[in-house]
């Protein structure tokens, strides 16, 4: 339980750093560290595949994409964020935590969730046999992403 609290606190702390940091590169690195904490949490929850995906894809690939975008735009310090947002954040966050603790317990009893069942089989069976339609959706989304990239970086014709 203590390890879970430490990991969850690290996750929230690095997420806060990611949004409050003035330097965009520091924000991207904080986001990657938050993903790392989330990946370790997934491993602790007996979900190694999700953990591997989270660490390799979200902490690795997405951070690289963010770094690339920051390097290509070279606009650090270009946008001035309001100081009030940074100053007010701790106060608002503490108020939210109080509301969260008070409301969440009652909410969890009311909101419907999956029934408690002990599922047999392996992860591969669930992914390939039960969730086949999700996989088709994933393929469609990856293709949509590829085509959107092609469309966005298409060179203009001379007569345009």
């Amino acid at each position, binding site marked *: 339980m203590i390890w879970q609290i430490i990991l969850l606190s690290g996750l929230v702390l690095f997420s806060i750093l990611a949004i409050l940091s003035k330097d965009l590169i520091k924000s991207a690195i904080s986001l990657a560290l938050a993903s790392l904490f989330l990946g370790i949490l997934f491993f602790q929850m007996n979900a190694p595949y999700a953990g591997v995906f989270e660490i390799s894809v979200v902490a690795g690939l997405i951070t690289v994409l963010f770094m690339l975008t920051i390097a290509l735009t070279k606009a650090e310090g270009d946008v001035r964020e309001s100081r009030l947002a940074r100053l007010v954040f701790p106060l608002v966050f503490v108020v939210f935590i109080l509301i969260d603790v008070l409301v969440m317990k009652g909410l969890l009893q009311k909101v419907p969730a999956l029934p408690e069942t002990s599922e047999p089989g392996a992860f591969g069976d669930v992914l390939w046999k039960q969730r086949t339609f999700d996989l088709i*959706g994933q393929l469609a989304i990856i293709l949509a992403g590829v085509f959107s990239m092609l469309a966005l970086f298409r060179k203009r014709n001379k007569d345009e």
Partner: protein
Amino acid sequence: MNSTWFLYMAFAACLLFVGIYCLLTMKNVIKLFIGIEVISKGVSLALLATGFVKKNTLLAQSLVITFIVVEVSLVATALAIIINIYRHTKSLDIRKLTKLKG
């Protein structure tokens, strides 16, 4: 087990709040997108925590992997759009996009 679920969901709600606060207060387009990423972390934590508590880890895991794939596709497309926005406006300020109005 209920206290574990409560702990995970409370922290997931915190992540959601942090992301929404970022979306409401920040002006840099990349920062806004980092906010969306933080929200997505909260969602994947909530999904897997519920699966873990209800002993449906395999199903929750496959949902989280689907979510991560969608997220990567979204990030790649959105960052490409951000680069195009920068080329057009020479700035990452979201307020400059109000020129698109009318």
